[in-house]
C-alpha cells in the first residue's frame, strides 16, 4: 500500500494525492492526518486532488470524514483541484461532499484559510 505524504506549510497541512488511491491508503491518510494535526497544531488542511482521476463513493465518504475529523482538532479542511469530469461523475453518483469546503486550486484554498 502506498502512503500519501503530508507537508506542513506554516499553519497548514498540505496533502497532494498523486497516487491511484486504494481504500487502505485513504484510511491510512485519515490516521496520519489526525496524528499530524495533534503534533503540529495546524489550523487548516488542504487536500489537493488535481491528479486524482476518480472519486468513488468510498473515497468521497472518506474525504467528508477527514473534513469532520479535522474540525474536532480545530482545523478547517479545503478540498482543491477537482477535475471537471470528477465533479460531473460525483454529482451523478449522488455524492455531495457536504461539510467540506472546496476551492478551484491550492492558491485559492490557501487564501480561503487566510494564510497567504
Amino acid at each position, binding site marked *: *500500500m502506498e502512503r500519501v505524504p503530508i507537508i506542513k506549510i506554516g499553519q497548514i497541512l498540505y496533502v497532494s494525492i498523486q497516487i491511484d488511491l486504494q481504500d487502505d491508503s485513504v484510511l491510512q491518510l485519515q490516521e496520519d492526518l489526525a496524528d499530524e494535526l495533534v503534533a503540529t497544531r495546524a489550523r487548516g488542511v488542504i487536500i489537493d486532488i488535481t491528479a486524482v482521476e*476518480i472519486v468513488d463513493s*468510498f473515497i468521497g465518504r472518506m474525504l467528508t470524514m477527514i473534513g469532520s475529523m479535522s474540525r474536532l482538532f480545530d482545523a478547517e479542511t479545503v478540498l482543491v483541484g477537482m477535475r471537471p469530469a470528477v465533479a460531473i*461523475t460525483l454529482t451523478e*453518483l*449522488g455524492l455531495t461532499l457536504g461539510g467540506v469546503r472546496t476551492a478551484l486550486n491550492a492558491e485559492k484554498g490557501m487564501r480561503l484559510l487566510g494564510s497567504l
Partner: protein
Amino acid sequence: MDELPIKTGDDVVRVRQQVRTVAAAGGLSLVDQTKLVTAASELARNALVHGGGGIAQVEVITSASGRPGVRVTFADTGPGIADLQQALTDGWTTGGGLGLGLSGARRLVDEFDLTSEPGAGTRVVVSKWRR
C-alpha cells in the same frame, strides 16, 4: 480476453486502470471514461468486500446498430444478494457506507445487468456506449 482477479485493494486499482485504458482506446469521452471507471471501482469493491473476491473482464464491444462501446463484467462466488430491489435503492447499505455504490454505479452507465443467486454469487455487467 483477460480475466483480472479481484482479491485485494491493489486489484481494485488495477481493474480501474484497465477500464480506463480500454475506455480511452474505445473512444469514450473523458467524462464517460471517468463515469465508467468510477462505476467499475464501486463494483470491484463490492465483489471484494461483499463477494469475498471475484474477477473482472473489460472489452470493447459493438452494438447491434454498429455503435462502439465498452463492457465490463464482474463476477463473484460470494453469498449473493437476497433482495435485488432493496440492494439497488439509494441509501441501502449492509457495509456501513453511504449505500450509493450499486445504485450510483447503475446511474453512471448506459446498461446495467445484475444477476444474483443467494449462495451462488453475483454477476454484474455494465456497458457505456460512445456518443
